[in-house]
């Protein structure tokens, strides 16, 4: 299946795109698109903020971004696939991996949006950059949810729940840990 068909559908008919990805499971193309969508915006961001005084922060951001994106994608695919199966999903891990890879594609639009922001007056440049990042983030998350929904044939609510479950579990674990730590501090032996 031609990659530009998928990319076009991804932008304008994301549900169709994800259904096709579920059928074809074109992981190779997904890896290519994901890598391009991760690296090109990172370089664009580094150009945009390189001439500030926070050069250390730029290097750290780039490193964290690359590692985090790849880890979340790969490990996330496995975890979300497992959770989706618990909720009655019928898809495959490879299909979800491919779908989530393609869902990275909107991030590449950071480049023209930041280029546009760079042309604006300095007073609103930073604000426009932040807004564009938030918009792209929302778009990406929406595509992730659509990927889970179409590949595992779940409802939208279940797909969102599948997406949120790791965060909810993490939150619950932090809460329980906090309670245990607080309890142990309260019950420390008192010397009489």
């Amino acid at each position, binding site marked *: 299946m031609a990659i530009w068909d998928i990319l076009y*559908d991804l932008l304008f008919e994301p549900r169709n795109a994800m259904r096709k990805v579920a059928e074809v499971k074109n992981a190779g193309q997904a890896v290519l698109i994901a890598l391009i969508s991760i690296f*090109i915006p990172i370089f664009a961001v580094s150009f945009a903020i390189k001439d500030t005084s926070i050069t250390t*922060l730029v290097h750290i951001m780039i490193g964290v971004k690359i590692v985090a994106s790849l880890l979340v994608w790969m490990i996330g695919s496995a975890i979300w696939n497992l959770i989706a199966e618990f909720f009655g999903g019928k898809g495959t891990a490879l299909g979800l991996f491919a779908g989530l890879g393609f869902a990275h594609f909107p991030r590449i639009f950071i*480049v023209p949006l930041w*280029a546009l922001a760079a042309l604006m007056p300095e007073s609103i440049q930073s604000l426009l950059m932040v807004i564009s990042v938030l918009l792209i983030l929302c778009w990406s998350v929406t595509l992730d949810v659509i990927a889970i929904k179409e590949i595992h044939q779940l409802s939208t609510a279940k797909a969102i729940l599948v997406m949120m479950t790791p965060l909810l579990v993490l939150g619950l674990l932090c809460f329980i840990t906090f309670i245990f730590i607080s309890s142990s501090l309260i019950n420390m032996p008192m010397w009489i």
Partner: protein
Amino acid sequence: MYKKSVIIVISLLILVSFVGLAFRNNDKQKVTQSEKIAIIYVEGVIVGGRGQNNVFSEQGGTDQVIKQLHEARDDSSVKAVVLRINSPGGSAAASQEVGEEIKKMRLAGKVVVTSMADVAASGGYWLAACTDKIYANSTTMTGSIGVYVPYANWEELYKKVGIYQEKIKSGVHKDILSPERPMTSEERAIIQVMVDDIYNQFVAVVVEGRKMDEIEVRKLADGRIFTGNQAKQLGLVDELGNMYDAIDGAAALAGISGKPVIKEYGKQSPWSMLFGANGQAGSLLEQVIINQAKNALNIGAPTELATDKWQVR
């Protein structure tokens, strides 16, 4: 075919944007090779050491200011430095360290100009006196040429709450400035000698930096504060103006023609970078009060409050 065309157009758009961003950075790099004026900020109470630094921000500690001065000195494109001072003073040693670095920078051929903000008093004025030229606003608070060592006697309070504190010391003056007992006259004399020594060094800095007569400086150096206006009339300040006047003055002294390129030193937090917010919280007065409570403002030995030695009777 249509879908392919759309994706090709989008790809071209992204490619052009990418190249545009890269070249925008190159243009900025070309500009950065031109002659620059560095702005280094001295804000808050002047204390020595590293302060609190993390990836996102730096707070306090003259080590950072000295580091920035070194960077500006080593940058051949920086022809002048504007020291933007907004400080009520602080540690004499820390002020002296920065002052010596300013003198080294001037010896290296760079122009250093002070721009006083709200307050540039005491240690802040020490630094300003080491620079080529001083700009202040007419309502800036400056002066306070003098030295003090704070001392508090908490003996009566300790008695009231039933705390008895004792020190087992190796020498008779080891617990000098101790808050749990009155200061002896001999101790007072020792501290006074120290204060006078530091004071004489402060006066010498002002005499040398401002090229004023020592007798004249000592008349003004009774610790009083002056407005920028008064300071100009008395010769403690050169010009009245804001930071941009100081920048223009620095450019003129350094022989930079046209609008100077500015390079600011110091980390910016991501928040202030994105939204231009000033992360400085609290007024200078609050910082002075907080740092006094932490004994960070003293010039001599700090009063010691060792709570683990408290003994309740």
